C-alpha cells in the first residue's frame, strides 16, 4: 500500500518550479521563449492579413467587436481598423514585449482579430491557443529589469501555465475521442477502434470539406494498414497533460503532435498550422525540457508504462 501511495504521490508531483527558478539556464531559456513568441507575432498578423477576404454578406459581429457597431463603423472600416491595429501592435511587440502594456495590447489585438474572424457564423478554434497564451503572458513579471527569486518563480510558472493550457486542449480532445468510441461501441456502431473507422472518418470529412487530400484514397481502401497509429491517437492526446509533470517528454510529445498534424493534412486536407506553430514554439523551446541520460530514464517518464516500470523496481528493491 505504501508503495502505491508513494507512486501516486510521484505521479502527481509536477516539476518543482522553485528548483527551476534557481537555475540560470532555465530562466534564460524561458525569457528567450517569450521573446520568440512575440518575434513571430508579425508573421501571425500576415496570416490574418492574407488568409481571407471574407464577405460582408455573412458578417455578424461577434460580441467582442460590438464596439464597432456602437461607433457606426461599417464592414470595411471594421476590418481595416482591427487588422491595422493587430499589424502595428505585432510589430511594436518585437521591440517592447518586455513591457506589460505591450503584452496587454498584443492580447487585445489578438482577441479583436480572433473575434473578427469568428464573425462569419462560426468561432475560429485554431486561434484559441494563441489567445490563451497571450492572455497568460500579460501577467508575466518584469524579469527583464528586476529579478528576484519570487519573480523568476512566477515567470517560469506562467510559462508552464501557457504550455499546460495547450496540453489541456489535446487531453480534452483525447478524452472526447475515447468517450465517443465507448458510446458508439455500446450502440453497436462503427467506433474509434473499429478497423474501418479511419476510412469512414476520412471519407466523410473529405466529402464535407471538398479539399484534396493525397492519402485519402489509400486510407479509404486500406484502413487496416493505418489502424494502429489511428487507434493510438486518442491515448497519445489524452496523456498530453502528462508532459507538464514529466517535462523531459515535451519535445518528443510535440514531435508526435506535429506528425499528427501532417497526418491530418495528408489524409483529410485540413490544416492546423497556427496551432502547430504554437506547439512547436512552446515545447521545442521549452525551458523545462532536458535530455535523458539513459533509456531507462525515458521509459520511467512514460505514462502507465513508466509507472509500472517504477513499481516493479520499487517492488524488487523491497523484496531484496
Amino acid at each position, binding site marked *: 500500500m505504501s508503495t502505491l501511495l508513494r507512486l501516486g504521490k510521484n505521479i502527481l508531483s509536477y516539476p518543482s518550479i522553485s528548483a527551476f527558478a534557481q537555475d540560470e539556464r532555465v530562466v534564460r531559456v524561458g525569457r528567450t521563449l517569450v521573446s520568440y513568441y512575440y518575434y513571430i507575432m508579425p508573421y501571425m498578423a500576415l496570416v490574418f492579413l492574407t488568409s481571407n477576404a471574407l464577405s460582408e454578406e455573412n458578417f455578424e459581429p461577434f460580441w467582442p467587436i460590438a464596439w464597432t457597431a456602437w461607433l457606426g463603423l461599417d464592414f470595411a472600416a471594421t476590418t481595416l481598423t482591427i487588422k491595422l491595429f493587430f499589424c502595428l501592435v505585432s510589430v511594436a511587440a518585437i521591440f517592447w514585449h518586455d513591457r506589460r502594456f505591450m503584452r496587454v495590447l498584443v492580447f487585445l489585438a489578438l482577441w479583436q482579430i480572433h473575434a473578427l474572424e469568428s464573425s462569419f457564423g462560426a468561432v475560429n478554434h485554431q486561434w484559441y491557443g494563441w489567445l490563451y497564451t497571450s492572455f497568460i503572458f500579460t501577467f508575466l513579471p518584469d524579469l527583464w529589469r528586476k529579478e528576484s527569486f519570487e519573480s523568476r518563480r512566477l515567470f517560469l510558472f506562467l510559462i508552464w501555465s501557457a504550455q499546460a493550457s495547450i496540453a489541456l486542449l489535446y487531453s480534452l480532445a483525447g478524452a472526447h475521442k475515447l468517450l*465517443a468510441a465507448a458510446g458508439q461501441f455500446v450502440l453497436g*456502431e462503427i467506433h474509434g477502434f473499429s478497423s474501418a473507422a479511419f476510412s469512414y472518418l476520412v471519407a466523410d470529412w473529405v466529402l464535407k*470539406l471538398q479539399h484534396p487530400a493525397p492519402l485519402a484514397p489509400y486510407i479509404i481502401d486500406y484502413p487496416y494498414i493505418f489502424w494502429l497509429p489511428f487507434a493510438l491517437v486518442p491515448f497519445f492526446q489524452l496523456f498530453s497533460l502528462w508532459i507538464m509533470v514529466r517535462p523531459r517528454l515535451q519535445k518528443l510529445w510535440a514531435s508526435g503532435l506535429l506528425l499528427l498534424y501532417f497526418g491530418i493534412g495528408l489524409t483529410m486536407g485540413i490544416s492546423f498550422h497556427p496551432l502547430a506553430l504554437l506547439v512547436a514554439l512552446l515545447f521545442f523551446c521549452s525551458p523545462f525540457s532536458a535530455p535523458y541520460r539513459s533509456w531507462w530514464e525515458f521509459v520511467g517518464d512514460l505514462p502507465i508504462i513508466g509507472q509500472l516500470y517504477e513499481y516493479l523496481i520499487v517492488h524488487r528493491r523491497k523484496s531484496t
Partner: protein
Amino acid sequence: MAYRVAKMVVLATFALYALVAINLRGPLQDVYPIFSWSLFSLIPNPDYRFTIEVLEARGEKHNPPLRFSESKALFEGINQSPTQYTPRINRLGRALINNNAREVAEARAELEAVFGEEAFRYQVVMIYADPVDYWKSGSYRVVNILEEFASDKQP
C-alpha cells in the same frame, strides 16, 4: 501577483475549463472562450442525414441538381468552407421534420445569407448515406425531398 495565488488561480481555471469542455457535446461546442475540443471524435456511420441540392445559384441552373458535397465553388466567392454550413442544413432539416415554421425561417435566413443578393433555389433532402460508399460511387439514396425553397432575392 504571488506565486502561490497564481498557482491556485491557474489550476482552478484549468479544472473549470476541463469540466465545462468535457460536458459540451453535440452541435453546441462553444461557450466562448471555451471549446469542447471534440474534434473527429464520432465516427460517421451509414445513416440518415440532411443535405441540400442546389437547383439554381449564381445565375446558373443545375439539372440534375448540384449536390452540396460538390458545391465548393459556390462558397469560394465568400472564402468560406461548405463544412461551416452543415450545421445550418441540419437545423433546417430538423425544423422541416418538426414543422417548426419559426425555426425554418431562421435556418433559411442563415443558409441563404451565403448567396447575398443573388438568386438561389435549392431543395432540402433527407438521404441515406454510407460515407465510404458515397466516396467510392459518388451517389447516395434520396429518401425524401422535404421542401424546395427559393431565396427572397429572386429577380
